[in-house]
């Protein structure tokens, strides 16, 4: 064990004040058998390891078993052995005595306390294994090993969401992916689409062009293949565009505020959508003749058809956003916007050309310039040899566009394929289609060859490179090989390298001496009412990042316009959701859907022929079935908990009195509703009706120490031989103790006998979602419920 500070307190007040003083760095120790095990086995991450242990064992008055008002009071520090052997408990509350007696081993019962048993952490074999170095979901990792592995100490009633899933965490826009896939599984496409639109207003676009980090991080990828999230997103995106009037609605109420958005790329469109949804009047100003920024002029139409972009923009316009194109925002215009609007969002993108460091730079065409030209006048370039300088997505887009115009593109990149910043998928497609790559090659000079004047072929001088030590980007630095110069002749050379934002129209005080924006990185705020985001702030990035920036800016601007702090309008962090379901089929190897794709010959035949198709509804539903709906399947393993729930017990704390059922209804990382610093003082169980019988049963691997595979408590009252009320609580089958309402309702009015107990037990198993390897727990639970009922027969 690592060192910690140890404090022994003598009163409850002292305990709460010490806990308040030390906050999260303090842990309470009483019986200590669980806590010391945790500390010894390095289960806790370093940042969770307590600095202070507060020993409450010496507080007098918390260790007692007393009869009161016909009921029972048990102090928090009472040892389990004393509960198990106390005559009053054994006589009037046999289920409680039995549960205490069946907890852990005799020695641990002599040490462990009632409150410790109630407040124990949820169990998972994987989480608790000594020196556990793998990262499960609960420890902040990305996978749950129980879903497909050994799962005896795990849920058979679904999972609990632990913060965010790996896919959402990987997405720059943190799209809540698992919930909309769950909607699809339930056949609720409309709900799924609305869930998606809440975090992404342009799904038809990202469903086509997003690099889908979500799929790279998908936990299913370790099992077989990642869920095809992008294809599903695209399907939903097309679904909402086909029903734009139903999904893109004007806000219910107008705020009376006006916001100007400069730039209509993905950041501008995203901000405009969310600002409009918040009730503000939004005007978008675009320099180019078409709305869309890089979506229109940067991304080639074979990846994003113009028709889709047009309909997406129309959908947003349908909510009341106004677009004005052909407006160059210069310093004067910017001043006017600042004056006339309540807020301005600048999302001007990054399309200012930079030099590639080649002598004869003027002979080169810029990549975005080229794509603009193609957008306006797609002319054939049949047979032309075109050199493309760069290794990013623009280089690939330019090269693949050139192929479709009939040219022969050659990409010159100074490092190797492994270091290319372009997406692997895009590189693979370019290779398939016949783009030639010259790796470890750096163009150094360009000049017009011969007497053809400016229109003549360009002689491009290159030299070979080799990889050296890593540079500040972590990639190996390309080093020139002396004497390796060679020349090639190209009809056109295009430089597809990093472009920069243009800040020339901003007031000088917005930019520092080194030409960087003076911006608050948290809120994107430039000045009182001016905000900025997207490529304009970050330099060239992706559509998903731009949408995220637009959303974040919209929240900050909305907060500003409402006079509150920007933080207030941010979305609340997702809380633990219990009972997340997944499809039983997802736990078996399950082939990823084939996304329809054109063969190479067809796809290079035309510039606007979209290479990838949209899935049909049945394929999408099938793919949604593959989602693990990643959640934690650890269970509450307390033996006393189900008894308290069945007997209608209450838990008294330093702050309040809580019904047992409510006390446990939390989830995973915490197992009770206790607030920081709140301590359990004891439990109270009301006097049972004279005809009430209670029982407790536990199934474990062995008598000593083992946690329950399943345990159950029942309290059944009979009148005139028939059941008048029944409370039955299973535990170790779910994240919280689970009352089986189906069985309870079924029993009322019936005489307890074998067939009745059998039928009630069947009813109690409704809604089970076993994991791949714990279906047998259903049979155990069912049998325990049946026997617990029979044990309560009058």
């Amino acid at each position: 064990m690592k060192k910690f500070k140890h404090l022994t307190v003598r009163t409850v007040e002292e305990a709460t004040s010490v806990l308040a003083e030390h906050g999260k760095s303090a842990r309470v120790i009483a019986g200590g058998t669980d806590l010391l095990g945790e500390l010894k086995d390095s289960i806790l991450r370093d940042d969770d390891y307590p600095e202070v242990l507060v020993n409450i064992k010496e507080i007098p008055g918390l260790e007692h078993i007393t009869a009161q008002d016909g009921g029972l009071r048990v102090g928090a520090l009472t040892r389990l052995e004393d509960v198990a052997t106390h005559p009053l408990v054994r006589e009037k509350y046999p289920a409680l005595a039995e549960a205490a007696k069946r907890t852990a081993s005799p020695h641990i019962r002599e040490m462990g306390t009632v409150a410790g048993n109630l407040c124990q952490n949820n169990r998972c074999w994987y989480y608790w294994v000594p020196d556990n170095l793998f990262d499960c979901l609960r420890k902040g990792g990305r996978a749950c090993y129980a879903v497909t592995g050994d799962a005896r100490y795990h849920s058979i009633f679904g999972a609990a969401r632990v913060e965010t899933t790996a896919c959402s965490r990987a997405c720059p826009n943190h799209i809540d992916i698992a919930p909309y896939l769950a909607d699809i599984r339930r056949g609720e496409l409309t709900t799924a689409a609305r869930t998606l639109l809440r975090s992404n207003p342009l799904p038809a676009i990202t469903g086509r062009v997003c690099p889908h980090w979500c799929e790279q991080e998908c936990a299913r990828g370790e099992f077989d293949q990642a869920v095809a999230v992008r294809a599903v997103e695209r399907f939903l995106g097309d679904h909402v565009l086909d029903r734009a009037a139903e999904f893109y609605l004007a806000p219910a109420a107008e705020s009376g505020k006006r916001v100007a958005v400069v730039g209509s790329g993905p950041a501008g469109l995203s901000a405009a959508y969310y600002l409009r949804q918040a009730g503000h009047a939004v005007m978008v100003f675009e320099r180019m003749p078409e709305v869309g920024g890089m979506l229109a002029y940067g991304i080639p139409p074979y990846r994003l058809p113009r028709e889709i972009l047009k309909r997406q923009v129309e959908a947003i316009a349908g909510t009341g956003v106004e677009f004005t194109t052909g407006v160059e925002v210069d310093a004067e215009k910017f001043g006017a916007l600042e004056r006339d609007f309540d807020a301005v969002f600048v999302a001007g993108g990054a399309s200012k050309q930079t030099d590639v460091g080649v002598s004869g730079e003027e002979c080169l065409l810029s990549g975005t310039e080229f794509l603009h030209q193609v957008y306006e006048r797609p002319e054939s370039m049949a047979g032309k040899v075109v050199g493309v300088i760069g290794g990013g997505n623009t280089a690939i887009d330019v090269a693949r566009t050139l192929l479709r115009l009939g040219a022969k593109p050659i990409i010159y990149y100074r490092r190797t394929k492994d270091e290319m910043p372009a997406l692997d998928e895009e590189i693979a497609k370019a290779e398939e289609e016949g783009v030639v790559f010259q790796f470890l090659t750096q163009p150094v000079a360009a000049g017009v060859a011969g007497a053809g004047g400016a229109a003549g072929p360009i002689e491009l001088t290159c030299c070979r490179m080799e990889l050296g030590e890593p540079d500040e980007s972590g990639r190996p630095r390309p080093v020139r090989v002396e004497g390796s110069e060679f020349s090639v002749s190209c009809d056109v050379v295009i430089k597809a390298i990093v472009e920069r934002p243009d800040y020339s129209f901003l007031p000088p005080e917005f930019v520092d001496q080194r030409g960087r924006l003076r911006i608050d990185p948290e809120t994107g705020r430039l000045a009182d009412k001016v905000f900025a985001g997207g490529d304009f702030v970050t330099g060239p990035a992706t559509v998903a990042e731009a949408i995220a920036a637009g959303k974040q800016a919209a929240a900050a601007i909305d907060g500003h316009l409402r006079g509150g702090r920007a933080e207030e309008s941010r979305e609340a962090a997702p809380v633990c959701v219990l009972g997340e379901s997944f499809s039983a089929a997802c736990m078996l190897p399950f082939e990823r859907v084939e996304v329809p794709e054109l063969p190479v010959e067809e796809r290079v035949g035309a510039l606007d022929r979209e290479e990838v198709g949209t899935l049909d509804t049945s394929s999408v539903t099938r793919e949604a079935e593959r989602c693990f709906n990643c959640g934690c399947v650890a269970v509450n393993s307390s033996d006393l908990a189900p008894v308290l729930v069945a007997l209608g017990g209450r838990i008294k704390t330093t702050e309040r009195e809580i019904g047992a059922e409510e006390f446990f209804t939390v989830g995973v990382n915490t197992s009770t509703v206790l607030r920081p610093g709140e301590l359990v003082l004891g439990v109270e169980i009301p006097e049972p009706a004279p005809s009430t019988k209670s029982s407790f049963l536990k199934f474990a691997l062995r008598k000593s120490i083992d946690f329950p595979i399943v345990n159950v408590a029942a309290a059944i009252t009979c009148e005139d031989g028939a059941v008048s009320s029944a409370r039955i609580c299973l535990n170790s089958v779910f994240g919280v103790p689970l009352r089986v309402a189906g069985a309870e309702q079924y029993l009322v009015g019936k005489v307890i006998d074998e067939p009745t107990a059998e039928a009630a037990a069947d009813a109690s198993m409704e809604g089970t979602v076993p994991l791949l390897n714990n279906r047998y727990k259903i049979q155990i639970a069912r049998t325990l419920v049946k026997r617990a009922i029979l044990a309560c027969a009058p």
Partner: protein
Amino acid sequence: MPHIGDKQPVSQPVSEPVPRPVSLGTVTLTVNGEVHELIVEPQWTLQYVLHDKLGLIGTKEFCGEGACGACTVILEGRPVLSCLMLAIECDGKNIETIEGIARANHPLIEAYIKHSCMQCGFCTPGFVVTAKALLDRNPDPSIEEIKEAMVGNLCRCGTYPAHIRAIEEAAAILRGVLVAQGGEGRD
């Protein structure tokens, strides 16, 4: 055996009436009747202090997480796991270890030898201490009660049936219904 309900409130100040911060690390332990005053680090377990600081090496740490019972000692009459208990929290407490039980010539010792309750012997002190705590409370345990009390002690060599015979025999000697044979002090 006293029940909690009989002596409420149970927790009474153990040594001194005046509250004092215990985090100083000075503790007084009464081990097998001998008083030891020690300075302990907060993270030291009772097993570590007994074994490494007081040289009472009969108290073994094996699993270290409450699964094997090898570290069992009797603390204020209760058989507990000394590897899952902080020494700093045992200030003013009475502790009995296997050494004390042996010195007192408890009939369990001879019975364990007679019935060959050990093979490698590593787990034996834990068994004997647990059995002693049982007999202190229940002089005439049934086989079922013996099994119930001993279930937290594990033996890799598989000597379990012998323990039941030894404990039954020691109980009979203690009750005076059987005469001990060859019982010499083992100091």
